[in-house]
C-alpha cells in the first residue's frame, strides 16, 4: 500500500530542509567573500519567511502519513500553527542576530546557517508529530544541531565546554526518554499518541499501572530537559553563558517551545487517562522551577546568566497551566514570552557587557536600546506598562485559579515578586545617570532589536491577535 503524502501539510519543514541543503551547497561553491556571508543569511531568512507564510496560510486540520486503522503521524492544527509560527518567527530574529555574530568571522557561515535551518525544521515538525517515533526524531533534530552550533566558534574553550555539558546532559535525558518510550510501547503496543491513549483506557491490564507511570515519567524527563524544568535545569546558566548569544536565544525560545510542544502532546494526547497521576507532579515541578529559577537569578551579575535563570523561571510559569490539563494558556504565555525574551537577548547582543553595571545609564547613552531592554524586562516582570507580560501572567493565573490549584497561584504570586526584584534591579541601572560608553554594534543586530521590540509592543497593545489564533 502506498501512503499518500499531503505535501501542503509538510510544506514548511520541507522548505526549511531544502533551504538547509541549498545553503550548504552555496557555501561550498561560492567564493569566501564577505558578501557571500550576508547572501547566505538572506537565503536563510527568505526560507524562513516562505515557511512562515506557508504556516500562516494553513487553515483547518490537515493530516498526512496516516496508517488506516491506527491514526496519522503528522497533523497540522491550530496549536501546531502557533508553535510553528513561534519557532519560525524566533528563528528569523535569531538569524538576524547571527548575522551580527558571524560578522566577527570566527564561525564558518555555511555550517552555521545549515545547522540553524536543521534545528528549525525539527522545531516545526515536532508540534505536528502525533506518534512517538516522529516525536523522538524531531526532538533529536532540534537538539543535535544546537550542540554543534554551541561549539562552532573556533578556539573558544567556553563554547566547547558549554557544548559538552549540553551534549552530556541532553544525551542522558534522551536515553531516559527512549527507555520510557520503549516501556510505553511495551505496555500499550502502539506508537501513535491517540492509539496509546485508547490502549491505556482499557483497564484489563493487571499490574500495568506502575510501569505506565514510570514510562510516562521517563518520557516527560526527555522534554523536561528541553524546557529546563527543575531536576533538569542545572545546565541552563553555564550553557547560555558559554554559547554565542544567538544560540542562547535559540535555546531559550525555539528549543524551549519545541520541548513544551512535545510535553503538551504527550501529556494531553497520549496520557489523558493518567491525568490524576501527572497533574500534581507537573504542578510541583512548575512551582519548583519558578522558585529555583527566580532564586538563582537573584544574585546574578552576568546579564546572560541572569537571562538564563529568568528563562528557567519563565518556563515554570508556562508549566503551571499545563498542570490543569489545558494547554492553550501555556501556548499563549510562550508566544508572549518569546517576544519579550528575544528583545532582551537582542539588546544584550547589540550592547554586550559582562556585568549588569555595564548597562548603567544605557537609556541616556543609547535611548533605543535602553528603552527596548527596559520594556522587555518590565514585560518579563509582568508589570504595566509591559502589558504583554501582564496579560501573559493574567492568562496563566486565570488557568491555574480556574483549575483549582490555589496554592500554586499563591506560589506564582510570590515568585512574581522575587522575579520583579532582579528585573527592576537591572532596569534601575538602565535609568541611573552615568557616562554610558557607546559600543559599536553591527546593523543587523539593531534590526533584530527593532523587530523584537515591535513584536513585543504589538503584543502589549493588542494581545487579541495572538489569543484569537488560539481559538
Amino acid at each position: 500500500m502506498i501512503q499518500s503524502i499531503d505535501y501542503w501539510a509538510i510544506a514548511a519543514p520541507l522548505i526549511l530542509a531544502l533551504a538547509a541543503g541549498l545553503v550548504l551547497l552555496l557555501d561550498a561553491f561560492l567564493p569566501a567573500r564577505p558578501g557571500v556571508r550576508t547572501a547566505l543569511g538572506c537565503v536563510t531568512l527568505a526560507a524562513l519567511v516562505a515557511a512562515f507564510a506557508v504556516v500562516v496560510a494553513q487553515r483547518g486540520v490537515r493530516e498526512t502519513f496516516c496508517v488506516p486503522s491506527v491514526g496519522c503521524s503528522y497533523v497540522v492544527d491550530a496549536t501546531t500553527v502557533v508553535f510553528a509560527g513561534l519557532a519560525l518567527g524566533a528563528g528569523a530574529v535569531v538569524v538576524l542576530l547571527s548575522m551580527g555574530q558571524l560578522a566577527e568571522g570566527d564561525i564558518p557561515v555555511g555550517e552555521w546557517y545549515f545547522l540553524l535551518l536543521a534545528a528549525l525544521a525539527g522545531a516545526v515538525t515536532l508540534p505536528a508529530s502525533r506518534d512517538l517515533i516522529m516525536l523522538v526524531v524531531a526532538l533529536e533534530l532540534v537538539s543535535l544541531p544546537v550542540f554543534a552550533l554551541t561549539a562552532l566558534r573556533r578556539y573558544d574553550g567556553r563554547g566547547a565546554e558549554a557544548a559538552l555539558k549540553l551534549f552530556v546532559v541532553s544525551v542522558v535525558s534522551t536515553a531516559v526518554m527512549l527507555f520510557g518510550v520503549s516501556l510505553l510501547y511495551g505496555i500499550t503496543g502502539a506508537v501513535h499518541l491517540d492509539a496509546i491513549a485508547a490502549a491505556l483506557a482499557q483497564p484489563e491490564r493487571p499490574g500495568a499501572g506502575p510501569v505506565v507511570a514510570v514510562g510516562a515519567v521517563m518520557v516527560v524527563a526527555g522534554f523536561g530537559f528541553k524546557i529546563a524544568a527543575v531536576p533538569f535545569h542545572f545546565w541552563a546558566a553555564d550553557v547560555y553563558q558559554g554559547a554565542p548569544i544567538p544560540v542562547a536565544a535559540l535555546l531559550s525560545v525555539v528549543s524551549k517551545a519545541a520541548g513544551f510542544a512535545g510535553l503538551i502532546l504527550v501529556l494531553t494526547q497520549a496520557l489523558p487517562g493518567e491525568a490524576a497521576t501527572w497533574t500534581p507532579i507537573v504542578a510541583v515541578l512548575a512551582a519548583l522551577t519558578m522558585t529555583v529559577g527566580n532564586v538563582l537569578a537573584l544574585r546574578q551579575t552576568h546579564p546572560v546568566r541572569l537571562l538564563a535563570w529568568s528563562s528557567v523561571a519563565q518556563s515554570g510559569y508556562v508549566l503551571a497551566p499545563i498542570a490543569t490539563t489545558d494547554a492553550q494558556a501555556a501556548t499563549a504565555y510562550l508566544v508572549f514570552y518569546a517576544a519579550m525574551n528575544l528583545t532582551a537577548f537582542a539588546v544584550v547582543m547589540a550592547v554586550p557587557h559582562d556585568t549588569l553595571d555595564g548597562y548603567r545609564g544605557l537609556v541616556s547613552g543609547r535611548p533605543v536600546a535602553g528603552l527596548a531592554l527596559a520594556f522587555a524586562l518590565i514585560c518579563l516582570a509582568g508589570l504595566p506598562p509591559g502589558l504583554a507580560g501582564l496579560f501573559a501572567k493574567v492568562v496563566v493565573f486565570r488557568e491555574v485559579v480556574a483549575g483549582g490549584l490555589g496554592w500554586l497561584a499563591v506560589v506564582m504570586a510570590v515568585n512574581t515578586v522575587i522575579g520583579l526584584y532582579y528585573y527592576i534591579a537591572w532596569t534601575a541601572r538602565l535609568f541611573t545617570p552615568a557616562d554610558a560608553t557607546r559600543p559599536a554594534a553591527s546593523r543587523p543586530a539593531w534590526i533584530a532589536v527593532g523587530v523584537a521590540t515591535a513584536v513585543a509592543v504589538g503584543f502589549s497593545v493588542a494581545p487579541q491577535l495572538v489569543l484569537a489564533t488560539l481559538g
Partner: protein
Amino acid sequence: MHVVYPAVVAALLFSIGVYGVLARRNTILVLMSVELMLNAVNLNLVAFDVWLRDVLHSGQVLTLFVIVIAAAEVGIGLAIVLAVFRTRKAIELDRLRELGEP
C-alpha cells in the same frame, strides 16, 4: 521465552550505562556508557515488538531510528570532545568547571 527476561536484561544494561555515566571521569567513557543505555533501549524495543507480535513492527522501526540517532550523537559528541581537548588539553568531565557559578 517470557518477555520478562529481555526486559530485565535491558533494565540491567540501562543501570550499568547509568553507573558508567556517573562514575567515569573520562568523557569518552561517558559517551560509551550512554551508548550502552541506548542499546538497552533497543533491546527493550525489539523484545516488546516480538512479544506483542506487532503487525506494524513499530518497535523495530523505532530501533532503527534509535541506532541512527545514537550514531549521530556519537559523531557530534566526539567532535565536541575533540574541540574541548584542543582548547583545554583535558577531557575529564568533572574538571571542566570554568562556566560554573562565580
